[in-house]
């Protein structure tokens, strides 16, 4: 099996990938992955379930990632108080507001030409929803990606994502396991 060199190579053959990251390195490697996407694609949708937009942009800047290439859906900031959506971020009232999340996703795809979407993280949704409802939301997102001919990345924590990861795997073309001690992309490809 040929070792993929970067996201573009993997995503050229697979529209939707599941990305499995060790728990201990999850935050760091996800930012790293976002940075790599920023190098390869022009417009990336970053759906954040539990990380505030401001904090994410701060992390991006610390890691020399250009946030202008990203469009955000932030599901957490408005739980702490009202805030108006900006040019590159839609604030959803709560991670529990599934209809709002769906509307926000539809809005973004209607207004923007998104190359790739990354959801951070599907497993967090299981804090707020029943198993089936998370699956239905992920299925809807996958269908939307298909229609928009957009690539998708569903990252999971290796140790703690639980059975949800295996179920959402059904909606992916391929699963990629990231390991921190590998090549510059942090890829270890397993089957």
């Amino acid at each position, binding site marked *: 099996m040929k070792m993929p060199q970067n996201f573009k190579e993997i995503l050229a053959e*697979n*529209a*939707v990938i*599941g990305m499995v990251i060790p728990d201990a390195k999850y935050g760091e490697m996800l930012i790293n992955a976002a940075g790599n996407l920023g190098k390869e694609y022009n417009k990336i949708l970053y759906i954040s379930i539990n990380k505030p937009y401001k904090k994410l942009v701060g992390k991006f800047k610390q890691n020399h990632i250009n946030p202008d290439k990203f469009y955000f859906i932030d599901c957490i900031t408005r739980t702490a108080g009202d805030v108006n959506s900006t040019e590159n971020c839609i604030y959803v009232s709560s991670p529990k507001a599934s209809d709002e999340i769906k509307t926000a996703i539809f809005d973004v795809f209607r207004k923007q030409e998104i190359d790739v979407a990354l959801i951070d993280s599907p497993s967090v949704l299981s804090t707020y929803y*029943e*198993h*089936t409802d998370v*699956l*239905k939301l992920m*299925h809807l997102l*996958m*269908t939307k990606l*298909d229609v928009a001919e957009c690539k998708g990345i569903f990252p999971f924590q290796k140790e703690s994502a639980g*059975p949800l990861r*295996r*179920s959402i*795997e*059904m*909606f*992916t*073309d*391929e*699963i990629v396991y990231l390991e921190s001690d590998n090549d510059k992309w942090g890829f270890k490809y397993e089957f």
Partner: protein
Amino acid sequence: MYKIMVVDDEPDVIEVVTDILESKGYDVIDAISGDECLKKLEKEQVDLILMDFFMPELDGRMVIEKIRENSKLRDTKIAVLTSATFKKRGVEILKELNVLDYIIKPFDADDLVMRIKKILE
């Protein structure tokens, strides 16, 4: 007479599928959840299971895995009947789990019957 178990959390779907299959002479039993499916399979032998994917608690994949892990049930014929569209990895998993067909809702009644007949005969 072949006995078919329809597993779906939507009673309307169970009713429609049951009507179609009974009209063609099949004996149909149902389960409203994965858990109920597994409990009924302990008591009743079936020739085919039509399994939904989106179900609470245990989704279709989880239930099929449990059936395949059970030495008494592992050879049971299973087809998936679902509104879910699986991608490449999902279809591979269905093959690995020896799922014999993957029928997408909404389905055509004649097509459903034809595919079931093909699996059973």
